């Protein structure tokens, strides 16, 4: 598995490019970190890769997953997982149903699906919390549940958007290790944007600077 960006560039509605064309190769199980000052378009870059770009933005270049061009596919067909600084668990579903939301439809049978979710819950230290209201979880529990939800969908690549910036210092360290361990063990190519150098060093992969073209 690998995620490749070929001379990817984004221009806003008035035609100005946000940053210099970006070419990247993210191999399986590696975390590539993209750093840049705030406002340079880091989140917009992830939107473009994931297929969530707002109307008015123009995309040039290609996004390839395992060599296949996915640039024209809608988000739901790309199999690119997405993590934000907030867990964004669906508030109307139980913790377990949140995890089950992304299970591939190919996994059939209620018992099998339930077992897959329970397994993921126990990996995240959330055993027995299937029926819990996500609003009652602690910040760390929520973050781990969100990561398990993303991984259960068996993504072909993973995008992390400042994933640890809202956690307090102690929790941040734990969550980094938890996240990167899972990413490595599942061998998912992962792209992280952040402005925290500690995130980058914890990830251990290459660091790319995003050079903005717009005057700050």
């Amino acid at each position, binding site marked *: 598995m690998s995620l490749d960006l070929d001379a990817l560039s984004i221009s806003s509605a008035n035609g100005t490019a946000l940053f210099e064309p970006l070419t990247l190769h993210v191999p399986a199980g590696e975390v590539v970190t993209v750093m840049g000052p705030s406002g340079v378009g880091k989140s917009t870059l992830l939107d473009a890769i994931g297929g969530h770009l707002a109307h008015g933005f123009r995309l040039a270049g290609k996004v390839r997953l395992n060599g296949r061009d996915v640039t*024209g596919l809608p*988000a*739901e067909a790309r199999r690119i997982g997405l993590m934000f600084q*907030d867990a964004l668990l669906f508030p109307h579903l139980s913790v377990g149903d949140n995890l089950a939301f992304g299970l591939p439809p190919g996994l059939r049978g209620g018992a099998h699906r339930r077992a897959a979710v329970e397994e993921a819950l126990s990996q995240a230290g959330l055993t027995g919390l299937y029926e819990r209201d996500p609003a009652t979880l602690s910040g760390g529990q929520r973050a781990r549940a*969100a990561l398990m939800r*993303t991984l259960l*969908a068996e993504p072909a690549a993973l995008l992390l958007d400042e994933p640890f910036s809202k956690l307090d210092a102690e929790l941040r360290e734990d969550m980094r290790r938890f996240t990167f361990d899972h990413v490595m063990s599942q061998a998912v190519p992962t792209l992280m944007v952040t402005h925290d150098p500690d995130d980058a060093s914890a990830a251990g992969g290459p660091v790319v600077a995003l050079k903005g073209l717009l005057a700050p």
Partner: protein
Amino acid sequence: MRQEGGLLRAGVLVVVGLGLIAPIAVGLWQTGRAAFGVLPALGQNMASLAPWYELAALPGFATSLRLTLVTGLGSTLLSLLLATGFCAAVHARMTLSAGARMLTPFLAIPHAAMAVGLAFVLAPSGWIARMVAPLAGWDRPPDIASVNDGWGMALMIGLMVKEVPFLLLVILSALSQIPVARHLAAGRALGYGTGIVWIKIIMPQVWPLIRLPVWVVLAYALSVVDMAIILGPSNPPTLAVAVTRWFSDPDPLMILPASAGALLQAVIVAFAVALLMVGERMVKGLGRWWIRRGGRGSSAEPGLWAASAVVMVLMAAGILAMLSLVVWSLAWRWSFPQILPESWSLKPWTGAKDGWMRALSNTLLLAGATVGLSLALAIAWLEGEDRARRTRAPWAEALIYLPLVIPQIGFLYGLNVGFLQIGLSGGIWAVIWAQALFVFPYVMIALSDSWRALDPRMIRAAAALGAGPGRRLWAVKLPVLIRPILTAAAIGVAVSVAQYLPTLFMGAGRIATLTTEAVTLSSGSDRRVTGVYATLQAGLPFAAYLAAFVIPAIVHRNRRALSGATS
């Protein structure tokens, strides 16, 4: 990347164009033709100004015009001043959600029901007179025209009882978008009194956010019919009521001057809105000069407290009015000057059962159909914006407000002509269509903010988990938004139940609803039966609001973020 949701957006555009815009255009066109003498159905084919001369010569025309301008402009400006003063005085002590809860009954109750109740309270034999009677020594109702007075005072009070709470809610929600407390602190630290900070700092920020709702209030107050029939002067009445009467005159040729009057009504609203815009310019210029002088002013707080006191009196009158509906519907013997009935009975309810059951079922059918259609269209519109990942263009926003700013009387007659031509007139479908013109904008406005407030990243997360647009809508957005959706539906029910003119014009008088019956009965003598209809009319929107509160709490009882129980 290809444009997603194109088909949905095209569908919504067609429905809005043919379903909402075309009827208004056709209605204005047909009314306009008749206003200039062209009415082929009556053999009138020559365009002329004759209907306008006829209109000007109709008895009472000048008085009607004056009454409309005074009551419409007066009630709107007073409501705006009072609501602003009240907000300035109590804002620090009232949050948006608490305010909304308190104001809901005033917003839910239809204008006609409030008018019936106020007539019960204000009439010479009403509650206020009964309370004063022991002091004044009255043993019979005093001989004063406190309702249907020639000045339109009762009508203005009625409009203000309904519009002040609406403007309060609008201002409160605008204030929630402004850092009021910090600006107040900054202003006072510079030596300005609280009242002056409100006028010089806060209101200039609030106005752009409430401008459109104020236009809607102004248009409504200038062209209201049901409330004006119940509370307003009767001979001559306000222009909108007079025009309604002329349209139903036994002489069909009266349609020509009536159409001219209907068009004039639209012109009056346009003129009033233009006046407001000019006024805004002038206040802006004067205000800037005034602010630059830097006067700290003596505190304007007496003004604020006076405004608050008047608002409280209006609200007390509104609460009394709502209570009086129920009391009258259960009263049997209730002679002057007793404060409460001497004997109670369910006979008003059982005696008129066939009548109100029929009106109730018609009302329910109309509310269900119009709210269902409006909600479906609103959700399709918002989902179309989501799928195209676009924000709303200003012209689209203006389209939503269009039916609320054009007076109903201005195009309903012409719309009926249009419906006749396609064989739709006089039936339930014509009424549903006409009502939906006014239900949809409110449903759409009510739902839009909450829909946009949904975190777009949550929807992206759902897409990243492989959920297509359909699953994102049905499995994430709609369940999460159940409370605002039901609230929008409740507002829609309140608007549908309150509709008078569309039901009257499009139903050709054959479709009786609680509102048409209550308005008709209000001029009669039996207050008890009127009380029954008005109680039901007020009860339906209350029930809808209650459902909008209870259903999400039950469905999401185990979900703290959605059940409404603030943690």
